[in-house]
């Protein structure tokens, strides 16, 4: 037989087998986890997967859902690539998952909305937050990560409160950080202030000295880093090493205790915008220490949201009383502002988070503390 035919047949047989393995009514409740667990974004993807599995384990230990059915997770690795994420989403859909939690990299999340929409699968988006996702949402997905608008507004208030006039904004060239940077710039110039430098770094580039010189040369009084903690930590280090004395603030993608490992002392006095997480709610404290002991590192910026996403999905399944897609989607949208790790969740008609409750944190003594001005 031709090799090609073999491949086609093999694929067909495999997928049929996968289909027939699909869950019987009384089996475990299968939840898909859509996250980049390979490729350059795997750091964040694995973090999300870990947090979701922590939540699932807790729910299972508490007796599972719908009269004792256990939650089973299937990984849908997107590698942060749109093609691969559609493949992953189709596979999850073919395996008849009850719901999907995850979504990181807006570019890779967007095309999957249609896939889940067609299959009527509820989707809790925990990290991707581009405003472009809103109109692409057929109605089966809810976003529990606040969109950039809210954060840009928080940033505006914060920097104005500090009496800053000239602001430098640095992003990492991905959808999330570019979006937040653009929104902040527009808000900042709209309020009559100056953006003295609007810069960009490559992911994985370690040397920011030229950039730091440029920021210093621009006379910026404050720097706003809109991307993630790993490169942010390096930037903060190099800013302080080079004697930048002004205010440094980072977006919620950098809200991780890991930032202190990378930036060291330089992270002292750095501000972060964030949902009120981890250290400020009793449940969150427990989460942080469970996470640390189970996975050996501190939870990343999206771990609490991912954990919440799984809990929210479980809550909705319970509320719907079945694994029917429509019922769960209805339940999700009726979320009533109950407190989760990252604050209360309820949704707008656009299926985005109803409230904006960004708080400002300050790095002190190697950890984040609530900043009250």
């Amino acid at each position, binding site marked *: 037989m031709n090799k090609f035919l073999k491949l086609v047949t093999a694929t067909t047989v495999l997928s049929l087998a996968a289909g027939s393995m699909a869950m019987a009514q009384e089996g475990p409740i299968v939840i898909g986890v859509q996250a980049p667990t390979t490729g*350059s974004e*795997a750091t964040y993807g694995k973090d999300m997967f870990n947090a979701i599995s922590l939540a699932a384990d807790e729910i299972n230990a508490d007796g599972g859902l719908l009269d004792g059915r256990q939650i089973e997770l299937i990984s849908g690795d997107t590698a942060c690539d749109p093609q691969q994420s559609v493949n992953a989403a189709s596979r999850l859909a073919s395996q008849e998952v009850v719901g999907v939690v995850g979504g990181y990299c807006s570019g890779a999340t967007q095309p999957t909305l249609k896939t889940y929409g067609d299959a009527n699968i509820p989707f809790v988006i925990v990290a991707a937050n581009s405003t472009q996702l809103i109109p692409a949402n057929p109605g089966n997905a809810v976003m529990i990560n606040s969109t950039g608008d809210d954060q840009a507004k928080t940033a505006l208030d914060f920097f104005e409160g500090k009496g800053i006039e000239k602001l430098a904004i640095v992003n990492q060239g991905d959808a999330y950080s570019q979006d937040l940077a653009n929104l902040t710039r527009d808000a900042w110039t709209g309020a009559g202030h100056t953006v003295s430098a*609007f810069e960009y770094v490559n992911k994985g580039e*370690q*040397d920011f*000295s*030229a950039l730091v*010189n440029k920021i210093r040369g621009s006379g910026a009084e404050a720097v706003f880093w809109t991307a993630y903690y790993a490169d942010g930590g390096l930037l903060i280090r190099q800013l302080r090493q080079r004697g930048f004395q002004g205010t440094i603030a980072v977006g919620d993608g950098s809200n991780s205790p*890991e930032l202190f490992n*990378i930036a060291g002392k330089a992270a002292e006095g750095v501000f972060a915008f964030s949902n009120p997480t981890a250290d400020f709610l009793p449940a969150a404290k427990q989460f942080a220490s469970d996470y640390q002991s189970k996975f050996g590192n501190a939870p990343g910026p999206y771990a609490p949201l991912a954990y919440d996403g799984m809990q929210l999905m479980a809550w909705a399944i319970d509320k719907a009383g079945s694994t029917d897609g429509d019922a769960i989607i209805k339940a999700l949208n009726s979320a009533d502002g109950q407190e989760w790790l990252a604050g209360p969740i309820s949704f707008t008609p656009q299926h985005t988070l109803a409230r904006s409750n960004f708080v400002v944190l300050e790095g002190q003594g190697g950890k984040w503390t609530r900043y009250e001005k």
Partner: protein
Amino acid sequence: MTWYDSFLQQLVDGLVLGSFYALVALGYTMVFGVIKLLNFAHGDLYMTGAFAGFGGLSLVSGFLGAGWLGIFVAMLLAMLAVGCLGVVIERVAYHPMLGAPRLSILITALAVSLVLQNAALALTGGQYTAFSTDLGFGGISLGNLFLSYNQIVLVAAAAVLMIALELFVSKTLYGRAMRAVSIDKDMCRMMGINVSAVIAVTFFIGSGLAAAAGTMAGAYYGSIWYFMGFLIGLKAFTAAVIGGIGSITGAMLGGLILGLLESFGTHIPFIGSEWKDVFTFSILILVLVFKPTGLLGKSEVERM
């Protein structure tokens, strides 16, 4: 800052960055010299070197401390370990392919790169590892010009390594054998040179240099992760080509030029730093259009 101060600062920073590129580019160029392979796994050896250096430092920091002495010893350990890894890779993956079309070896190198990257991902769980050292932030300020002690040590170390390599290649018999192998392998065999051994030594040195750069980068910047070799691998490849691939002096020159291009590219008036890489690659293409074999490369008829 006056434009003059700023210019000097860019120059200094560009040279620091360029030293890293040059060290990594050297390995590219040496391997290319002896087996005409664009070793796409080289950047991942840099990453492996950073982790080996991290491991080495945690071994020795107990009695040597985590200052420059401890880092130096850790770097030597990393060079040794990754040098051996390079030799193993050559034996296992490239040596059996020497008769194959050159593109096939290139693909093999890409596969090796994927293996190293994903193995590191699996081992580290994708986490960024903080490379903590006792290095301070101190430095010398000359007016507005700032030079940190770390930068000085780093550039000096890179320079020592490069000079040592240059001396080895130009002055010792073995170094000459390395050059000879890159020119005519059969002739070398006829003269009693064990070509396989020379190739192995070349991989050892090239990989060792990448490991040195990886350890220094880890110590200097403070964090390492499984994907850190990708970008620098690309940059070092670019540097090696600008300088003229196969030429050792060319790789050093190419690395420094690339470092300077990036440093100054951030400051081009009217366009933002997001265009920096477009600028760099455009210069690269221009160089090659006017000097098709790179700055110091020799014209040589090659086929895929």
